[in-house]
């Protein structure tokens, strides 16, 4: 039986040229040249790294619950008491028995004692409690406390300087923008520095629940 199917017309050269021309004219399949932003110059100026202030209330001293005439919180400078009275046994390692001030302070920092960080030798030999002290007695300001922590925690300070500890906000390259860094005390209370931990942010709510027996809310342990 002869086939009744009509054969397709043979593709003509004109037809092929027409199709290719249409495709070329419409830009079909042609990548544009790659766009790039210019490279960073090696000697371009670098913007600064700023340390976040260690407290919203500037200054040295214990925070009181008072405010001054302008409404700013008032700090009681250490020297307001310690210029005239000596600290009650700086060799103590437990602050819980202090009665006159610093009540309720917990000191849980290895075998450290108050006098190892506080009270650099001031003029006339009396300790100056408005600054901190390094191991050799040199004074260091409270705002530069990172240098004090770095004495013992050198590896963490080295990691911090190289950006792998303590986080940052701003730019991955300071030629493109400034950067802000935390201080140690933003995460580690210097009197009880062990990292406290936190409750995690909520996890994924998948289309197919990972653990159906825990229920839709993820349940609790």
């Amino acid at each position: 039986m002869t086939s009744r199917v009509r054969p397709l017309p043979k593709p003509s050269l004109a037809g092929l040229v027409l199709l290719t021309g249409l495709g070329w004219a419409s830009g079909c399949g042609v990548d544009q040249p790659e766009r790039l932003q210019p490279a960073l110059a090696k000697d371009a100026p670098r913007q600064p790294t700023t340390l976040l202030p260690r407290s919203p209330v500037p200054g040295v001293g214990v925070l009181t619950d008072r405010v001054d005439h302008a409404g700013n919180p008032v700090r009681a400078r250490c020297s307001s008491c310690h210029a005239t009275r000596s600290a009650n046994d700086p060799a103590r390692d437990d602050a819980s028995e202090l009665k006159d001030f610093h009540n309720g302070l917990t000191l849980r920092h290895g075998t450290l004692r108050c006098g190892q960080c506080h009270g650099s030798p001031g003029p006339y030999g009396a300790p100056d409690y408005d600054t901190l002290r390094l191991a050799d007695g040199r004074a260091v300001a409270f705002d530069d406390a990172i240098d004090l922590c770095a004495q013992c925690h050198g590896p963490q300070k080295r990691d911090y300087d190289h950006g792998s500890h303590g986080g940052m906000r701003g730019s991955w390259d300071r030629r493109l923008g400034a950067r802000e860094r935390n201080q140690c005390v933003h995460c580690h209370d210097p009197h009880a520095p062990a990292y406290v931990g936190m409750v995690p942010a909520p996890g994924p709510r998948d289309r197919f629940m990972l653990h159906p027996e825990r229920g839709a809310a993820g349940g609790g342990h």
Partner: protein
Amino acid sequence: MSEHLPVRGRDDQNHARRDVLKGGAALLGAAAFARALAPLATFAESVSTEDFLQKHYKELTPNELETLLHRIERETLERTGRTVQVRADAPIEGVRFAYALNLSICIGCRRCAEACHQENNHDRATHNSYIRVFEMDKGSIDFGKGTVDYVHPVPRDDKFYMPVQCQQCNDPPCVKVCPVEATWKERDGIVVVDYNWCIGCRYCEAACPYHARRFNWTKPTIPADEINPDQGLLSNRIRPQGVVEKCHFCLHRTRRGRLPACLEACPTGARVFGNLLDPDSEIRWVLANKRVFVLKEELGTRPSFFYFFDE
């Protein structure tokens, strides 16, 4: 013998039953077909003609790119009432991005995943994020034993925490399997997806060994006041239904010099990001001085995402 056996005729009872069954099956089939085609009824609303005829990102002339960005901004304004800015920044020359994660100080708090969720206009219903944090037993990297849905306070002493996101591989399996070249690796190392070109076949999702790619089964829903207006065409603009998406190293931020959102949110500073081609960068120092490894190295994907320990 010319006698035939009696032949059942059309007026038999059996045939009536057969007709009813055939009719019922045909009705069910038609109903199923109509149900299957139902999404097409809303298709016309969710996709404009320009969207449908959109050229591939790499083929857009600068003028067409401008037009596309403005169109998306206009459509977002119409649909959500929010004015957004969609940009298409080019890679910076001489930059190859890499990321490192410090497993010694990651505490598994998921702030990175939460920041990603907010920065990248993710679907609120599934609380989607490009980052998945695994709680793993110390001493092994067996993801089969890791959990991602823990709710207890962290960190636990006997566990370590490992956030996983797109590794921006240097030999990406997802790019190789895409049948339409909707995903490719850019000059600065980021593997991007052209959401207008993606056909939603999910081959890339199957090919990725890290399960970094997510498919939008439904239209992502975000309350208008939670939309991040600083958007990138290939990154965090609100994705349509039916496309695949993944971590893009916040290229709308990083191509302008800013840190990715996950890094800024990390409270311990476990994340390190930078340019591999800059010898003074933090990422280069980490790779040279820390005990660094990559996930699934034996697969040869050569990730740009590194994990390290301090000790």
